[in-house]
């Protein structure tokens, strides 16, 4: 019997994960969230809906994604064997598409002709633009003006896919501001627009449904672990911004008490410097942003703090509410990886395994580097390689002093 069984029965009827989560939105959006919740609760156990979702994941996304033994890298580090869950091989190059496929099906069912999304690194924006193109939906993506600059390639990808990318100039001009602007759009165009949120945050029911759509990652990893090494992994490692790829990998293992889990946040220049994006690892206070209560980086006056990370996709001051609860109950350990360690992991995996990871995913790799040598060679670590690094080539080149 797992001591964490209660965790699988959340959220409660009002979208709460213990003290976290909920639905903190202005009144205009309440009916849309009620509608979405009703639609989803009806469809989540509907065999036809699930069959359509599974079909798309198999034939459009290319699932299951492999579980790859990074043998050379494991040997170099010494200690546990490292396995990479290759979400980078999905269509569009990251785990994000699992969720956008699911939400696009919901959008289709709801009959709304327009979808909107927020994006940080651009991966969720690309994944949304992709499914919108496929379903013939009008698509607009909000992206912080600073992120538009550092992720030009993804911006152009979205445009090629027919989406309109709207740079957001307010606030810190990053992911949180993109989400503010997407919420403002939604409240204005709520009758004909479906908001595809890209992470396990936002108001209920988003954290739940984004989790459910990404949980395919963990279900596959569980089955593949049994096939590949005949037992469950000893540890799971995934990066955490909002936390959707970590949630997807971890959730199907929640009741496996012997499987340790590590969520790796963006340490930026270091958690003690204040320049980071690690609300859990830094023990940020509780707060309310974007419709849910969670750990939230804010100052003494309750103003949301500026964050810093080398990776646009993790540059977010909050975190999904279910992660907040998992920290409190001790199910997952949340740590941070600093920018320099992340870059080192990025380069190392590229050179040793011929796999170029997204800078987001390189946070998980950086922690695997720390963890593996502390474990035995007969132990196994599964790292979620949540996205590929092509989009980050410009960022890394710039650090190397090159401009194209």
């Amino acid at each position, binding site marked *: 019997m797992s001591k964490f069984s209660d965790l699988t029965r959340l959220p409660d009827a*009002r979208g709460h994960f213990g003290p976290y989560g*909920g*639905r*903190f*939105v*202005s*009144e*205009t*959006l*309440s*009916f*849309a969230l*009620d509608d979405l919740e009703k639609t989803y609760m009806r469809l989540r156990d509907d065999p036809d809906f699930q069959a359509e979702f599974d079909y798309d994941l198999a034939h459009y996304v290319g699932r299951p994604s492999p579980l790859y033994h990074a043998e050379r890298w494991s040997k170099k580090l010494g200690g546990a064997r490292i396995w990479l869950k290759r979400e980078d091989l999905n269509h569009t190059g990251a785990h994000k598409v699992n969720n956008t496929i699911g939400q696009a099906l919901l959008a289709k069912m709801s009959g709304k002709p327009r979808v909107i999304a927020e994006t940080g690194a651009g991966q969720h924006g690309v994944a949304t633009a992709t499914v919108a193109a496929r379903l013939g939906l009008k698509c607009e993506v909000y992206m912080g003006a600073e992120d538009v600059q550092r992720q030009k390639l993804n911006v152009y990808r979205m445009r090629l896919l027919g989406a309109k990318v709207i740079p957001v100039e*307010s*606030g810190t001009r990053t992911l*949180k*501001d993109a989400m*503010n602007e997407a*919420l*403002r759009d939604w*409240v*204005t*165009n*709520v*009758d004909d627009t479906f908001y595809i949120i890209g992470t396990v945050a936002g108001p209920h029911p988003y954290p739940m449904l984004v989790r459910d759509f990404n949980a395919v990652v963990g279900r596959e990893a569980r089955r593949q672990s049994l096939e590949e090494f005949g037992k469950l992994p000893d540890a799971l490692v995934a990066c955490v911004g909002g936390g959707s790829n970590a949630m997807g990998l971890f959730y199907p293992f929640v009741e496996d008490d012997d499987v340790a889990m590590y969520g790796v946040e963006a340490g930026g220049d270091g958690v003690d410097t204040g320049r980071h994006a690690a609300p859990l690892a830094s023990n940020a*206070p*509780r*707060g*309310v*942003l*974007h*419709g849910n209560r969670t750990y*939230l980086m*804010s100052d*003494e*006056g*309750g*103003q*949301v703090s500026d964050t810093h990370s080398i990776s646009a996709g993790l540059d977010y001051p909050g975190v999904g509410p279910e992660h907040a609860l998992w920290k409190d109950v001790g199910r997952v350990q949340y740590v941070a990886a600093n920018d320099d360690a992340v870059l080192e992991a990025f380069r190392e995996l590229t050179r040793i395994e011929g796999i170029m990871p997204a800078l987001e995913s390189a946070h998980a790799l950086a922690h695997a580097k720390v963890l593996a040598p502390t474990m035995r060679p007969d132990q196994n670590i599964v790292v979620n390689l949540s996205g590929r690094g092509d989009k980050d080539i410009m960022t890394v080149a710039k650090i190397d002093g090159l401009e194209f």
Partner: protein
Amino acid sequence: MNRIDARFAELKAQGRRALIPYITAGDPAPQHTVGFMHALVEAGADVIELGVPFSDPMADGPVIQKACERALKHGVRLTHLFEMVREFRQRDAQTPVVLMGYLNPVERIGLEAFAAQAADAGIDGVLTVDMPPEEADEFGPILEQKGLASIFLVAPTTSQERAATICAHGEGYLYYVALKGVTGAATLNAADVAEHLAPLRGLTELPLCVGFGIRDGASAAEVGKVADGVIVGSALVSRIAEHAEQPDAIAEELKAILGEMRQALDALPAR
């Protein structure tokens, strides 16, 4: 009796509509706010909504976003708002003041501490934009204990069932959001507002005040025909923005635009 209830009772007896201006505290700089509040009262304000600047005002359009940014540049926070209202109360003991803002700054102080300090400063009501009644289980009673009114929003998209819940929790007045959108958006449709207000009358005795999309005397009068009060925010805040570099001119600007609305409302037949 709470100052808000007293004010609405008085207006009802006179057959008049409430005029409720909103400004963001600390915009364009903290030293001006109390003066603006007095100017608003001189121009005919019945209740003042004082905005709490927040880094992420999700329900607000660009005009109030920028007002928040101007105020935050000066580091304005809730403790400063309490000081402002305390100073305002030295000269004005009657005009109700409602704090309007987002939950995070309040939670950061702590609900109990917030309620105690707000009541002590002379604040009468609290409107937390991102806290619907379902999430107010804890906060509501704490405010009530300190005699602070919990003011809630009703939107065009609110179902009759939800409206009943909101009316059951609401105090002071009900804030009807006339538009789907953020603050400062398009002009409202008065016929549409009338249609939505009618069923609310059956649910509550609370005064029904309408905000979003009211920008001048004409639009105030249109809404005043069907509502117990009109709320005006972005139209005032955009004047503050225009004169941010000449703050001494702002009070007169605010008085001019609010005065026009006061006249338009008072020209309507008695309710």
